[in-house]
């Protein structure tokens, strides 16, 4: 207990004159244990029951994991300060997602009083600056996961401070912090060798050097998301190591088949691969990839405009676990490719989501082939103008669970067809 000396006395005082049944029957330790399973809102409600419960519910040991995202009102600075005083060393996990009014001062207090925090989510706390991260770096050496998504004032200084003070970091998210550059990422990579996940969507200044550093110094890196870092080239992506499971390089338009070849050679365990808008990739690259990365489950190939049915043939042969495949805007895909996909081992058991929107050559024939994909749950067909309503109806009759997304008006229920009587019954009688 946080204020144990004073609280023991108070608990003794309040529990002695408490006539309530539950308080008599249950020992305080058990009550405390029960309360520890509750979320913040329920705890606050319990704190209003009685003086005894107030003390028990507000005990720091109950407040190890706090998520303020669903809170009813805008969370202001003092709330965080109270929480950090109350929880002290107990606090392990705190989510302040979307608490836009939080400023550096509150985070400083937090770092001061909760040095044991391990997981901190500051998504969209837009007022925060490097000062917060410096405080965290000084005090919270046990920090493992930090999310700074959409905090635009965060710069390299933050990453430097975190890399100096938090060597245990495994998960870092600095998406849309547009001031982050290679220097910050390099410091982080050198300082936190245990890094498993690094996400920096939309950080335009993250370049080849940054990714190379991550590849060199963080051998455990499993998740890398560099969506929209458009200066990346094959050079750095080719260095990524064998631990990689999930890679997102959507929007990195300079990547070519060489990168796919290197990934195929070095990362055989890839599970998720997102390559949207990588318009230079061709069938040759996917052939190499499909030969060695047999564990692939999810692939996003949106706007890879050069790929043809050959890619689908390779994927169908090489990736038996494929679950989710997005081929939006791949305009060269035809029914033949879909047929090959539907004949593959993945189709019958795994394939559940297939995105075919804006593939103009896909026709009703493709849907007929897909009837054999028993696990199919969702198929996107927006703007496939050769697909007709009848074909969709047929697919639905074979696969009743499938959701089909297309630009067709939902069928009107037959009840509406009967015209309403113009007069009410009484008028007829009269």
């Amino acid at each position, binding site marked *: 207990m946080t204020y144990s000396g004073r609280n023991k006395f108070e608990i003794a005082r309040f529990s002695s004159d408490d006539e309530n049944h539950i308080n008599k029957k249950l020992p305080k330790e058990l009550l405390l244990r029960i309360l520890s399973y509750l979320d913040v809102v329920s705890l606050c409600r319990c704190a209003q029951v009685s003086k005894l419960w107030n003390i028990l519910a507000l005990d720091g040991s109950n407040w190890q994991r706090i998520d303020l995202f669903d809170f*009813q009102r805008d969370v202001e600075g003092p709330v965080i300060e109270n929480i950090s005083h109350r929880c002290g060393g107990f606090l392990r996990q705190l989510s302040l997602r979307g608490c836009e009014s939080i400023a550096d001062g509150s985070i400083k207090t937090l770092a001061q009083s909760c040095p044991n925090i391990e997981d901190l989510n500051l998504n969209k706390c837009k007022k925060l600056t490097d000062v917060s991260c410096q405080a965290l770096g000084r005090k919270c050496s046990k920090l493992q996961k930090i999310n700074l998504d959409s905090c635009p004032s965060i710069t390299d200084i933050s990453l430097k401070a975190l890399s100096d003070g938090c060597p245990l970091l495994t998960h870092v998210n600095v998406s849309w912090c547009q001031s982050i550059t290679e220097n910050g990422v390099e410091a982080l990579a050198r300082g936190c060798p245990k890094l498993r996940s690094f996400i920096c969507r939309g950080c335009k200044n993250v370049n080849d050097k940054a990714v190379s550093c991550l590849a060199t110094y963080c051998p455990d890196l499993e998740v890398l998301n560099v969506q929209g870092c458009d200066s990346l080239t094959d050079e750095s992506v080719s260095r990524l190591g064998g631990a990689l499971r999930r890679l997102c390089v959507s929007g990195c338009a300079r990547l070519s088949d060489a990168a796919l070849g290197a990934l195929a050679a070095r990362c055989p365990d890839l599970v998720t691969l997102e390559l949207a808008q990588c318009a230079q990739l061709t069938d040759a690259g996917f052939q190499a990839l499909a030969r060695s990365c047999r564990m692939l489950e999810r692939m996003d190939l949106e706007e890879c405009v050069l790929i043809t049915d050959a890619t689908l043939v390779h994927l169908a042969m090489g990736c038996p676990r494929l679950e989710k495949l997005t081929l939006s805007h791949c305009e060269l895909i035809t029914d033949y490719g879909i047929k090959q996909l539907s004949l593959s081992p993945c189709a019958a058991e795994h394939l559940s989501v297939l995105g075919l929107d804006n593939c103009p050559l896909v026709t009703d024939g493709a849907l007929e082939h897909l009837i054999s994909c028993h696990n199919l749950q969702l198929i996107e067909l927006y*703007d496939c103008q050769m697909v007709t309503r009848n074909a969709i109806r047929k697919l639905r009759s074979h696969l009743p669970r499938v959701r089909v997304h297309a630009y067709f008006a939902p069928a009107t229920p037959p009840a509406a067809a009967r015209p309403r009587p113009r007069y009410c019954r009484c008028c007829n009688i009269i």
Partner: protein
Amino acid sequence: MEEDKFALVEKIIKDVHNVLSKIADLYAFDVVPMDINFQNKSPVLHLENCLGLESWCVKHVYMYCYSELMDKYSPKFKRKSKKISNIDSDRLIRLLNVTILLNPEINSLWNKRRDLVLGLLLDKTVELHFIRLVLSRKPKCNEAFVYRRWLLETIFQEENYERNSIEHLINDELIICDLASDKSPNNYHSWNHRIWLLNKVKTISTYYDPNALYIKEYNSSEKWTSKHVSDFSCFHYHQYCIKNLYNLCNDSWKSLEKTLNINFRKNLVRVLASNFPKDVTIQASEENLLGYSEENLMNLLLSYSNKICNCIVNYVPMCKKIEILFHALVLNNELICFYKYHETLWYHRRFILHEIISIMYEHFGLVRYNGALVKKNCKICNFDDMRQKQAKIGRYDTNHIYSSVLFNVILSHEKQIIEERQKDGDPNADRHEKYLKFVEGFNNVM
């Protein structure tokens, strides 16, 4: 099936949002009639800065957006109204855009937008542009105009505006009013908005000289009325513009004559000369009358004033008023002869005559009260109470009006046109005669 429908609607909302955010200068939105879609094609169409939505999806999209807005974002069901945070504001804006484009006549939705503007989550200039898009489909949407006025009020209240931006704003408003009036005849709301704008300009005129605007507006409304002879909303605005011209200074008066390319005095004199009563002792020709000063001309027309006070009468503005009104009268003559049987034109004529007659009453210190003429107390001199007892009016006083030259000129002029139109079988001519007799009280002279 239900889920697929929601996904379809979500996709359409997204498509609309993409078009709205990508193309900055969209200027028109409409629903394209298409009962059934045979093709798997997006119902969101955009072509040359116009946005269209095929009608088959409107029902689904509207129901979906409207119910989500009302269920999730309406304060009715919440004990405390939740403050809109950045996270759901984006979603809210998307839904509002679609719903308002489809049905702009819901004030609750516009109020949501007001909340967002006050929370700085929506940009005011972007909003002005969005309203324009809404008006392109429903030019008679009062809610949109009201919201626009609210936005402009807040913009004008910000002190840091500059002369240029104000001129820009005013021009934009005039253009939008023009578009809305063009799209839909008898658009009361757009003309009303224009009047509001001009009144607003008066209050912020420290930065802006409204006279040039008045002249411009008079000119354009005159042209508009002569092209839309049945649009009384527009005539009402024209009347407002006429009243604005009453207090023009000399310089502006000259520029008015220049823009209209008319000599007002010549116009007035021509009407006078052709309708001069026979028994007047001084027979004046056009050339003769042109030489008169304002004061002499007014003295000739109204000859005698039996006002009870000693205020000095300034004849120059009075003469100007009469010149403007006679110009309007001549114009009205032409329109009535050209576009036959248009009631609106005759109503406008009533306004002109009423204005002229009230100028005469004012000159003679009279006021029409409960249908009868009574003497009016001059507010400036505030003459003693003794005189108030004599407020009853004698036949003597009215005779002064009926014998004045101006009155006789008008009377003969009106008789002439009524006679002419009656021959043509225009029922409005009879009504006009009755109006003059029984509303303006000419029954004992006509």
